[in-house]
């Protein structure tokens, strides 16, 4: 007993030190086996995760007996006006921790010491927390906390109390085996050998697979007890005699000359039998797990359609591909991003499957304008990386259905003679639907007084768009424009760059123009938008067009909920139908009012036909109507760049950056303009700014590396090439080739 106890204790120490941590990447494709009761997988720029529901738990099989440290990466994000959530963790029903989760992603560690009895095979880690209903959530979910990963690390240091109880139990099992054999008629030597054999077996199994061996040993204990009790009850004396005789024969055999060989053969057979049993057991367990996990899904969802099954496997990606397929003709030639960074959207073969018979072409910026056969571009958003990264002459931009929720408050018109508030909504329609080119679904009455907010006088819009450039909601006014006028409103939306204020001005000649404010820049935050000095803008625009400006009137004020970012790759999945300039731009717009979007469309049409000078003119017109549109400045910068006018190009990019400071790509393009103009130091600064904003895109690293290489700073250049390579992987694109060549070249030189 004493020897077995010591050996067992040592074996446990050895076994635990051999165990490796188990990591569950919550939100990864492989997490289904472990998580229950969570919301669907989600991804952001950095990782994948899931939000908890009130009854979410993580389940780890076959480790219930092992003392472990759990590390949970949890984010208890809440809106500013709400307190951080209280989280309670329970392991197999016992409270393990009770804490307040921070509003950012943090790792929390807890020790789990399993109870010796009753033994449990699995650990069910229950996560309970306060819940909240985010106003920006399109599905109206209630969320607990965000879980990014769960790591279970076995505790390797001695846990005396835990081991001692278990060791004593197992020693007791061996002792009982000895006693059972004795009582069944085995000799003392035979019973002793039997006990030792059991000990060896237990030790060897423990060494191979300690987790299961613990369970096995406890079962063995139960089994011995059952056998012993059964033996006594049923009086299987005959078997006792047989075993006794076998024991005597073993003793006799050991003394005979051939006996040892016979024993060796016996041991060999037993070893093979044990090996087969272990291999079968492990194989059956793994196969069973696979079958059970599949069967569970099938049982719960027996009648899913093909679409539903594909959606369950490909989540949002399937809907995206189906959307693109339904939005493009079968003979379309669609340009896709390089696979270097857009692993999914850039995988031509994969995309081919979903979009067949539509044909694909890999990114080729020149072909967008010059190749008549290219008809569409994907709008990709893989892992938060947007594509395309260049100006595109778009005929139509179709987004996957986007639910836009917009709240409006404190809508005011300021004139020299006073302030007019538009907040007296009782009994009248404050903003009537005026004009639209939107393709949209109106889920709720589009304009209601929102009762959900503290300020019940806010206007609330709830619309789902698939395509739009404008969707004006206006209120008719009749104000002569002969003095400075400005319009202001507080706006909140679930999506950035989608809402702006508008004002229509009618000229005495019968022409009209629509002036806009910059769009909202953030999601789920109140922002004050405004059209400043409308009088000067309207006067300048009218004079520019040769219209009489005396007597012009402000005829409509309101807002545009269908605003679309001019650079279509921002914040969304979709497809762009390219404008090849086949139709005349006048017919293509079909819109008689001079608004900024119309001029942007005209500019794109000219751009598509290679009429750069006219395109620049139209962009400049657009800027007169909407001087704060950063993307129009960017498009202008692109055209100046194409004309090798680096001074103008850099100026336009700079203005775009002032208006859209958080877009890394703008810095990159400004850096390229500086570099092409020979201003290397400024270029370096802009590339570094790009890296700071978007640290996981390879272009800026590559451009910086090339500058440093030219300047002879080879170590720095090599490091940057290497970093670019880490991001780009090896893909047959120009960037990846440049990276590989750079590494090879500098590797040799260094």
């Amino acid at each position, binding site marked *: 007993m004493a020897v077995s106890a010591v050996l067992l204790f040592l074996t446990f120490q050895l076994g635990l030190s051999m165990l490796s941590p188990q990591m569950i990447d919550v939100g990864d494709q492989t997490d289904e086996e472990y998580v229950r009761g969570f919301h669907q997988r989600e991804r952001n720029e950095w990782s994948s995760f899931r939000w908890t529901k009130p009854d979410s738990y993580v389940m780890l099989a076959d480790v219930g007996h092992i003392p472990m440290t759990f590390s949970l990466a949890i984010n208890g994000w809440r809106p500013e006006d709400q307190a951080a959530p209280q989280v309670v963790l329970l392991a197999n029903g016992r409270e393990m921790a009770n804490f307040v989760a921070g509003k950012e992603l943090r790792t929390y560690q807890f020790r789990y010491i399993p109870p010796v009895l009753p033994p449990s095979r699995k650990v069910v880690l229950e996560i309970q927390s306060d819940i909240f209903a985010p106003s920006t959530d399109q599905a109206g979910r209630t969320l607990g906390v965000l879980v990014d990963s769960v790591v279970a690390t076995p505790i390797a240091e001695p846990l005396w109390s835990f081991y001692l109880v278990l060791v004593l139990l197992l020693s007791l099992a061996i002792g009982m085996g000895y006693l059972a054999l004795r009582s069944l008629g085995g000799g003392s030597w035979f019973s002793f050998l039997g006990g030792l054999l059991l000990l060896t077996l237990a030790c060897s199994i423990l060494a191979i697979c300690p987790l299961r061996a613990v369970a096995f040993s406890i079962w063995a204990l139960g089994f011995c007890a059952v056998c012993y009790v059964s033996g006594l009850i049923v009086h299987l004396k005959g078997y006792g005699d047989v075993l006794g005789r076998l024991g005597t024969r073993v003793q006799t055999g050991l003394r005979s000359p051939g006996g040892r060989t016979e024993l060796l053969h016996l041991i060999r057979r037993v070893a093979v039998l044990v090996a087969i049993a272990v291999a079968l057991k492990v*194989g059956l367990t793994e196969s069973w797990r696979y079958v059970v996990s599949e*069967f569970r899904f099938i049982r719960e969802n027996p009648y899913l359609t093909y679409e539903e099954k594909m959606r369950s496997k490909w989540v949002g990606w399937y809907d995206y591909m189906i959307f693109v397929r339904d939005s493009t003709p079968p003979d379309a030639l669609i340009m896709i991003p390089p696979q270097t960074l857009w692993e999914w959207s850039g995988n031509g073969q994969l995309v081919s499957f979903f979009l*067949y018979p539509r*044909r694909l072409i890999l990114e080729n910026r020149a072909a967008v304008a010059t190749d008549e056969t290219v008809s569409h571009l994907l709008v990709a958003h893989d892992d938060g990386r947007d594509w395309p990264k260049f100006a595109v002459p778009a005929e139509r931009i179709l987004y996957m259905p986007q639910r836009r929720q917009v709240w409006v408050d404190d809508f005011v018109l300021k004139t020299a003679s006073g302030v007019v508030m538009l907040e007296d909504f009782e009994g009248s329609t404050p903003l009537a639907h005026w004009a639209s080119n939107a393709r949209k679904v109106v889920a709720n009455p589009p304009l209601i007084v929102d009762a959900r907010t503290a300020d019940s006088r806010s206007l609330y819009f709830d619309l789902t768009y698939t395509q739009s450039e404008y969707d004006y909601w206006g209120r008719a006014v009749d104000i002569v424009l002969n003095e400075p006028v400005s319009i202001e409103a507080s706006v909140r939306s679930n999506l950035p760059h989608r809402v702006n204020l508008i004002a229509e001005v009618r000229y005495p000649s019968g022409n009209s123009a629509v002036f806009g404010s910059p769009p909202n820049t953030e999601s789920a935050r109140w922002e004050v938008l405004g059209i400043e000095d409308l009088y000067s803008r309207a006067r300048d625009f009218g004079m520019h067009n040769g219209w009489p400006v005396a007597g012009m009137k402000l005829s409509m004020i309101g807002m545009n909920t269908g605003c679309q970012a001019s650079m279509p790759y921002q914040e969304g999945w979709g497809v762009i139908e390219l404008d090849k300039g086949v139709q005349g731009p006048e017919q293509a717009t079909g819109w008689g009012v001079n608004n900024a979007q119309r001029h942007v469309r005209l500019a794109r049409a000219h751009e598509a036909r290679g009429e750069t000078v006219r395109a620049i003119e139209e962009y400049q017109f657009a800027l007169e109507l909407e001087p704060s549109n950063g993307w129009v400045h960017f498009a202008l910068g692109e055209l100046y760049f194409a004309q090798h006018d680096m001074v103008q190009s850099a100026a336009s990019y700079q203005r775009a950056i002032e208006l859209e400071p958080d877009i890394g790509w703008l810095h990159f393009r400004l850096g390229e303009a500086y570099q092409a103009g020979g201003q290397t130091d400024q270029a370096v600064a802009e590339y570094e700014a790009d890296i700071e904003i978007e640290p996981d895109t390879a272009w800026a690293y590559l451009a910086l590396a090339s500058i440093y290489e030219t300047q002879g700073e080879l170590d720095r250049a090599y490091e940057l090439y290497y970093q670019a390579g880490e991001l780009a992987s090896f893909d047959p694109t120009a960037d990846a080739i440049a990276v590989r060549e750079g590494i090879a070249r500098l590797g040799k030189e260094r």
Partner: protein
Amino acid sequence: MMLSLLALLLVAVFGFPITLLIAPRVRFLERLALAYGLGWGAVTLGMFYLSVLGIPFSLPNIAALLVVVTLSLGWLVRKTADVSSYLAAASAPRDLLRRMKRPSLPETVLLSAIVFCFLAALLIAAYWPVHTWDALAVYDVRARMFVDAGSIKGAFSRSVYPPPDLLSLAPPLTSLAHSWLYLLGGEAQNARLIYPFFSASLIVIFYYSLREQCSALCSLIFALLLVTAPQFLYFSSVAYTNMPYAFYEATALLCLYRWLSLHKQGYLALSALLFGLGSWTKPATDPYFIAILPVLAVYCLQKRRCIAVAGFVALFLTVAMPWKLYVRYGLSSAQVFGSLEYEASIAYELIRTGLNWVQIGKAFDLVRLAWNRALGLIWPFFLGTALLNLKNLKQHGWLLLITASQAAVFVAGVCVFATVIYPDDPRELYAVVTNSGTRLLVFLVPLLLYYAAITKPVKDLFEVGLSVVAQIRLPADRQP
């Protein structure tokens, strides 16, 4: 579903005369299993040749070709093979039922477990459509292109991106197999149903190969070990090439061993055909075939059967080469991956750069990783039995040589990847070895288990230690 099953049945029907012609003395179930694999070879090769000849592979065209081929083979069987064996094979199902003895309790349990696993894989395959990444991106998309264009060249030439070079990278067996299903029953058919039957065929052939040397209990236990080997069940139910490839390669190697060691008639030709179809299924498999050649060279020298071995190589090339030639000359593809030139250039590069021990050390770490993932406990089990069998090493020397040659190719392959192809990109290297490398090892599982089962210690266990267990039966009145 029924149309899919009909399509699979037709495939087995097409393969049946080929088995009669090549291997006349085979048990019925084993013949059926072989017919399934060879049938897919016949159907897909038929479609391929139609495409080469410029005849669109519509359903009537393929059916006409296959009926002509099947009838011709039937006529050949009547002329050349022993007709009595044909008749015996034809009446085999009835005969099988008549001769089937009452299985013992352990045999019933084991058989039930194997059948359960097969049915589980079948159900999973029937429920889910083709959805895994490579299955869609590499194989199924080509199938839909083939059906639409009516020919391989037509399908590839229509694509701008991915270019034909990329589309023709993987051999076309599984894509053409999917096409066959879609042609027969429309694109709503579930092509995943093809794969569980490949695994069932492999199990049947494995069992009967083993049954020649072991007891029924031992064969069943090892068949169950094979079914529950890592990823076997998964690959049985997904539309990857891994299971068909494992079927062709493992069956080819078992057939080769049965010819080398047991001198079974027709098995050399069968092995060559199956090797060829393995190369027709998955890219970069040629080195595994080349590794067999030294083993056969030794056999040639010992037994003076050079003509048979030359015929073996010729038959392999007849099946394996047309696709490579078609890609090179028919599609004018620039892709060279998997070609002999490519492999030779890699070998040259390896010799030129010399042995880089640091990289080779890393490579062995990766080998261990892939080994563990693909083989699990099968590998230590094989090693253990091989060690216990050291005294009788010569008894199954050919099998050991074959196994060693295949394992050596894998190890060498990883070394090449680590030292020549991806020396500076550990992430890509890791991905290639752990994914593609692991899948390439699946065919080795049946071989390792087969060797373990026929070693003396295992035989001893079943003949002496467990002989009593094999006879445990339920009383007749409690039989189900």
